[in-house]
């Protein structure tokens, strides 16, 4: 026998179920209860940078839209700063960078308005390993103890829950007009299969003078979106 480690264990996840809207977006469930629902305004009125809209659909393994999904978004502002005390810098008054996105129950289409985030400074390395990147290491060099990495390309972090999803799925949305930054992004480069990387890249277009990015998420099968264990 050995001594007991007295850590607690994380509470197990359970599916958000079909009625997640009641708790997290009651207006969508069909009733008003709170003074304000959270996560409706991601960037706020004062955020600088380019105003964009992101739209998409979540598709299941049969090729059909998932109509009861809920997505949360988490992003930095145009300067690459998160509204959090551990992100160096300041954000604009009213910028939270977090949103809750629900689908049209008939079509499964979703969309949200925000500002395009800036590149995000990589975190300082942890551990006691080498402080400088060894000469032989490639772009996908991302081990513990590694040296400071370059900036991450602009991205929005997404968390997807729904009936049938037992534990929330984490992914990232990158932008197709950031090809140069994407090519150097340490997370995209971590994906060994180059042909899976485009599943994380939203496609830019313009509609009625507004910038719209398209980002479809495939839960399963051909063209399956890359999901992360964070």
């Amino acid at each position, binding site marked *: 026998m050995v001594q007991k480690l007295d*850590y607690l*264990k*994380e*509470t*197990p*996840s*359970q*599916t*958000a*179920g079909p*009625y997640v*809207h*009641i*708790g*997290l977006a*009651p207006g969508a*469930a*069909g*009733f008003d*209860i*709170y003074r*304000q629902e*959270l996560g409706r305004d991601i960037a706020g009125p004062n955020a600088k940078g380019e105003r964009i809209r992101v739209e998409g659909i979540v598709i*299941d*393994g049969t090729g059909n839209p998932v109509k009861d999904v809920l997505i949360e978004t*988490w992003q930095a502002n145009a300067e690459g700063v998160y509204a*959090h005390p*551990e992100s160096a810098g300041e954000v604009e008054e009213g910028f*939270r960078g977090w949103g809750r996105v629900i689908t049209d*129950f008939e079509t499964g289409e979703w969309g949200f308005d925000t500002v395009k985030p800036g590149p995000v*400074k*990589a*975190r*300082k390395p*942890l*551990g006691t390993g080498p*402080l400088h990147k060894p000469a032989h290491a490639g772009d996908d060099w991302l081990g*513990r103890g590694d040296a400071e990495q370059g900036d991450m390309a602009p*991205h929005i*972090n997404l*968390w997807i829950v*729904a009936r*049938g*999803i*037992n*534990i*929330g*799925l*984490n992914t990232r949305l990158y932008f197709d007009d950031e090809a140069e930054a994407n090519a150097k992004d340490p*997370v995209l480069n*971590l*994906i060994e299969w180059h042909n899976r990387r485009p599943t994380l890249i939203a496609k830019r277009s313009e509609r009625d003078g507004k910038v719209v990015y398209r980002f479809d998420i495939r*839960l*399963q099968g051909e063209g*399956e979106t*890359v*999901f*992360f*264990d*964070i």
Partner: protein
Amino acid sequence: MSQAEFYQRDRERHPAALTPDYKTSVMRSPRAALISLQQSVSEITGPVFGHNDIDPIDNDLIHNYAKDGESAIGERIILHGRVLDENGRPVPNTLVEAWQANAGGRYRHKKDSYLAPIDPNFGGCGRTMTDENGFYFFRTVKPGAYPWRNWVNNWRPAHIHFSLFGTSFSQRLITQCYFEGDPLIAKCPIVKTIPTQDGIDSLIAALDMNATVPLDSIAYKFDIVLRGRRSTLFENRLEGN
């Protein structure tokens, strides 16, 4: 300013994505392996909420949708507990959201057509912030069991859905709270997505007679554990470069 990572998620304790006895998971589960990330600033940060975001009545589901002077129908309960991290430290000032069916097992949702009636005085959702010691509570009615299509005849045990944030996006968690003594727990395919009995037990709120309010409400205690963070013991060394 701390920059330490959170402990890796123990995937052996969480449900797998694909759990065929919970049929909806079959076509909604990724087939490829998750790609493991070393946490960056994007993962160690997350939304911060304050008391301006919510109202004091929001944690009282008996009254937060009821007409003046009226209240929800059902067995009155207090559901209380603490939000802790894996190091056993309280998680203060974090948003806790909850939603549930009414005492008859019916949800107030466009998509719920179960024949049990809507309670006009019950919305079915609440939210609160933990205090400086990680404590939270809700006042509500005990939800009813309800039938659902999985096998021909499945019934969900009485449960309340919980949503938690912690301090970082990597701690984000949705789970469900069950109630001590419910015989439906052991029969539920959603409960049984959890691979360990210990994990299942950790989702069952205990009857807490000490916290009941005599002649008013019975009480259950439900503690929640979020991912812990690497010890500050090593913080100086780790950051000292």
